[in-house]
């Protein structure tokens, strides 16, 4: 073990010396964070303009507020953004979201209108499907906008809206004239079978994992570089086991990977307001995903004879897994692609973070265990393959 640590410290020292550790571990993550911030920092309003999303509504209110909200939804439906499906009761609506029949469902509770008109609080709930994060976010956004209009208006404005004296497009103007009023309508917590990440966090997390693949690839390419340069022979002539060499190289990747992830998490939190969730849960997931990725890259690199070959193979695998795992485009609903995504650490990491968002640390255990399982299986295969490469 001490030989592995010695090799890892030497490698890290070399990476510090040639500045690659700063580029890979600090500069690149920060640059990515800034890019993410520029792209996603202003919100998520552009997403989905050219697609149609299935959204359900359960109007148990039956009053004027529910009716007004239904009118707004139908206007949006007319614009082609959503396809609206009505359900009779909450149970049917939740079931539809659960099974993926719709991506999200609005629940308007009984007595909603009466409560708002009486100046009391009431809740509009959005239930999202676990595999439809985009739809859930859009539904949430619609509800937020409606809530904002109601909050900014007063009862008279709402009444005017209900009576048809003003249109929904005029609601904000009326509200501005009316000044701020006590909150009347609040949005119930967005619920889903598994909780959803906000878009910024989702994409930062996904791209961080994608980036991690290239850091993890260093473990094998560094060893193949040593073979090319003749120093591997020297290591093998020393009284240490070949496993120590592989272990040392992997340890280097794990350390750089963890440092990069921590920096990216901190930077995205402060720069973009990303919400990663409970630090302990995030730490578990980060450690697990870094181990899984290092193991996968070790396995992939084990098929290569040169560092160049390993780099090419690892790039192909990194991009493929990122696409399958929903890094670039969230994979919604059920079906072959959704099932296939579950073979990737990318999807499990995102799912784990989703489970953690607003949940507890215990909720990340399934994802954590799957990632550790991937690390163990891929690591075992990888070590077997790479040990064959540990030769002069």
């Amino acid at each position, binding site marked *: 073990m*001490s*030989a592995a640590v*010695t*090799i890892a410290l*030497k490698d890290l*020292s*070399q990476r510090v*010396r*040639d500045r690659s550790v700063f580029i890979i571990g600090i500069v690149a993550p920060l640059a990515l964070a800034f890019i993410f911030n520029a792209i996603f920092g202003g919100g998520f309003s552009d997403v989905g303009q050219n697609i149609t999303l299935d959204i359900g509504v359960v109007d148990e209110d039956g009053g004027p507020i529910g009716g007004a909200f239904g009118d707004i939804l139908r206007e949006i439906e007319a614009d082609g953004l959503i396809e609206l499906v009505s359900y009779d009761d909450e149970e049917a609506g939740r079931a539809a979201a659960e099974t993926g029949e719709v991506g999200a469902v609005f629940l308007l509770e009984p007595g909603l209108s009466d409560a708002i008109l009486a100046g009391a609080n009431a809740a509009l709930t959005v239930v999202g499907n676990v595999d439809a994060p985009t739809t859930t976010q859009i539904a949430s956004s619609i509800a937020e906008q409606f809530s904002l209009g109601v909050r900014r208006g007063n009862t008279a404005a709402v009444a005017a809206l209900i009576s048809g004296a003003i249109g929904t497009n005029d609601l904000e103007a009326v509200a501005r004239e009316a000044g701020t009023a006590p909150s009347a309508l609040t949005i119930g917590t967005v619920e889903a079978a598994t909780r959803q990440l906000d878009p910024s966090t989702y994409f930062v997390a996904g791209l961080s994992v994608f980036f991690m693949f290239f850091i993890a690839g260093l473990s094998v390419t560094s060893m193949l570089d040593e073979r090319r*340069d*003749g*120093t591997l*022979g*020297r*290591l*093998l*002539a*020393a*009284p*240490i*086991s070949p496993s120590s060499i592989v272990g040392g190289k992997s340890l280097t990747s794990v350390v750089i990977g963890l440092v990069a992830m921590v920096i990216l998490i901190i930077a995205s939190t402060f720069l973009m307001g990303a919400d990663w969730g409970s630090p302990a849960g995030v730490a578990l997931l980060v450690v697990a995903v870094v181990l899984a990725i290092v193991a996968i890259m070790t396995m992939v690199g084990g098929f290569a004879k040169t560092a160049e070959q390993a780099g090419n193979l690892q790039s192909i695998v990194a991009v493929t897994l990122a696409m399958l795992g929903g890094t670039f485009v969230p994979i919604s609903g059920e079906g072959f692609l959704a099932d296939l995504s579950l073979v990737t650490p990318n999807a499990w990491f995102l799912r784990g973070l989703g489970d953690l968002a607003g949940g507890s640390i215990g909720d990340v255990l399934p994802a954590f265990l799957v990632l550790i399982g991937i690390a163990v299986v891929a690591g075992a295969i990888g070590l077997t393959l790479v040990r064959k490469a540990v*030769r*002069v």
Partner: protein
Amino acid sequence: MVQPVLDVVGLKKSFDDIHAVRGVSFHIDPGETYGLLGPNGAGKTTTISMASGLLESDAGTVNIYGEPMTTKTLDPKAKVGLVPQDIAIYPDLTARENLRFFGKLYAMNKEALKTRVDEVLEVIGLSDRADDRADEFSGGMKRRLNIGIGLLHGPRLLILDEPTVGVDPQSRNAILESVERLSDEGLAVLYTTHYMEEAERLCDRVGIIDQGEIKAEGTRRELLRMVGKADRVRIAVSGGSHNVAESLRALPGVTDASAADGMVELIAGDAGEVLADVLRLVTDAGASVMSVAVDEPDLEAVFLHLTGKALRD
């Protein structure tokens, strides 16, 4: 009987259809410098790769002080210092850092390592450049650092694989002097080379290797004798030498002699052993010695005799 530092018996290694090493056997005693002399592709590097535990043999055994050496055994590896043919150092680390890193792999404790690093830097003449990065060194300095790494942990056997290939004459001489000094200090050395003069200068015994086989083995003199090679002595004289040939032929160690036109010529197994007697006989015969020339056959001639080709073919 002294236990050999290295004992190689019946070593074989093939790579697909290529039989790189075909039953090589030799041993090295403590303090001895043994040379493997052969052309490129003779099997020298493959042999020492197995001897240093880098490569598993197909057949045969390697023992270091009686302990079997394989790719998996660790203790014998600690007794061996390897200096590979290609420079195997980390160019982005300093000389001191290179030495310290490899010392740690040999489990040297911190204090001993610090002292030993300074000693080795002194031995390889890099004390004043200890904290410079290796990529700032000349080729010769890198070579010396390459040797220093092999020496660092105080091995019982130092294996050098063609350490002077591609080295300028000055650095080459420095390397050879270092090896001579280490040998004088009692370190056992296995030295591979295709330079005949290096083998002759450094090695107590030489194994002539070609096509994966040791063709002959022994001291330089034994090898020359084995193939019937002898020294030729030519003495330029003035007067009184015409009757000396018969007396010279009667000297032990002299196989033939002739005298004519102011020139005495003779063939001897070892010119150094008979030269004093030869000169005494010539002067006793009334001749004055004008000059003496000794042509010694070399290992190149032995190699040519054994393999039918020159070392650099």
